[in-house]
């Protein structure tokens, strides 16, 4: 697998923006056919509870823009100090141009500034960090703005129990910059494209454009309803994938960084759900106190924004005032997974903000 190491690049701030509207699984008895016991089991075992969702007018770009504005103002970084912007999203405003170009214009960044999108989901934040570290290390960029976010709630059919109660929305902004001080980080990035159809939106791209047929509702054997334009998830296979690849990837990265589970203060996994995270932690024999996992019950599975959301929501005290060696690891659509070990120290800002309701 491609592994890489960097020594003079650091994260200097992170902000995550969530929409103000909250949905609760307790209010969705109808979706579960009145089966309140099933809802109780989902809350207890999987950790589903509340989630934040956007309204019809708000997009990923809006959430990421608000996060970026707060990040840059609190970091006292001017727009003309940004050398590159990377947007990680699967829910861009347009098929073209990319969100990075749209946001580059809205933020008023310099013209000698690179702007590109990365089409990845739950593994995407770490992939974005990896790219940003390479851009800085290669010498062309002093400062990279990484914007990672998704509005998957808009792709979930409201009558599909496999996805509707799980996904929430969020947009994040992270500043990655060169530092003269030693700041080590290690990355591994991996893919298994043979599983591309385990988690996908089948229609709406160029292989199967949207049509009358793709918008037809279909009921599956489990009684869930969706169209080909909605997100489909084979929950059991994605779960199997997660508990197979994640423990191994984490072990290999720890070895590559010449450390072990004791040498890492926090393990911030993609906030898929509490059940997956406890299973991964159990296999790695990590103390669950070192594994933030409340983000999904507060905000839902936020796809590419879930790791920054967990950092801002559950680790801000450690990262603002002090220093923590963290392992970040994302896994999901692709199928794709990526992990990094790095130090989060003296962040200028590390917080969750709420977007303003759209007019």
């Amino acid at each position: 697998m491609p592994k890489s190491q960097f020594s003079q690049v650091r994260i200097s701030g992170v902000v995550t923006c969530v929409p103000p509207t909250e949905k609760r699984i307790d209010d969705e008895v109808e979706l579960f056919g009145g089966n309140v016991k099933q809802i109780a089991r989902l809350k207890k075992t999987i950790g589903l509870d509340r989630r934040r969702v956007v309204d019809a007018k708000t997009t990923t770009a809006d959430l990421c823009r608000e996060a970026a504005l707060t990040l840059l103002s609190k970091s006292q970084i001017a727009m003309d100090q940004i050398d590159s912007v990377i947007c990680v999203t699967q829910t861009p405003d347009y098929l073209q141009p990319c969100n990075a170009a749209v946001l580059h214009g809205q933020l008023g960044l310099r013209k000698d500034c690179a702007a590109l999108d990365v089409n990845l989901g739950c593994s995407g934040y770490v992939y974005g960090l990896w790219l940003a570290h390479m851009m800085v290390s290669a010498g062309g960029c002093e400062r990279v703005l990484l914007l990672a976010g998704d509005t998957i709630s808009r792709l979930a059919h409201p009558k599909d129990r496999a996805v509707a109660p799980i996904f929430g929305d969020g947009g994040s902004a992270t500043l990655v910059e060169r530092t003269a001080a030693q700041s080590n980080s290690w990355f591994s990035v991996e893919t298994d494209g043979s599983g591309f159809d385990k988690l996908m939106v089948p229609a709406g791209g160029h292989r199967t454009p949207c049509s009358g047929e793709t918008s037809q509702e279909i009921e599956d054997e489990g009684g869930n309803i969706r169209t080909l334009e909605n997100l489909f998830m084979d929950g059991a296979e994605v779960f199997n994938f997660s508990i197979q690849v994640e423990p191994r990837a984490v072990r290999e990265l720890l070895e590559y960084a010449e450390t072990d589970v004791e040498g890492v203060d926090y393990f911030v996994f993609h906030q898929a759900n509490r059940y997956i995270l406890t299973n991964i932690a159990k296999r790695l024999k990590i103390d669950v106190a070192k594994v933030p996992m409340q983000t999904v019950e507060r905000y839902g599975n936020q796809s590419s924004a879930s790791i920054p959301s967990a950092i801002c929501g559950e680790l801000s005290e450690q990262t603002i005032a002090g220093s923590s060696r963290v392992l970040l690891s994302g896994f999901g659509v692709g199928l794709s997974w990526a992990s990094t070990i790095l130090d989060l120290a003296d962040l200028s800002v590390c917080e969750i903000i709420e977007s303003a309701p759209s007019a």
Partner: protein
Amino acid sequence: MSLDQFIEDFEEAVEDVEVGTLSPSTNYRQLEQWDSLSVLTVIAMVDADYDVRLKADDLKGCESLEALFAHIQSKASS
């Protein structure tokens, strides 16, 4: 690996099933508690305790706990 132990593990894996209520001939797919969530919890239990990677289809293909246990044993030895 004994069938009795497996049935106990299964009862513990599926939320809201009382220990001691299932038998080798129980068709688990007819249980009131059997849903997509219990599919996950059983897959996780079999992975952790029996070191066997079940697919959702494996669980759909068996009619009783005895048959499922036999299926797991055949996958464990292959």
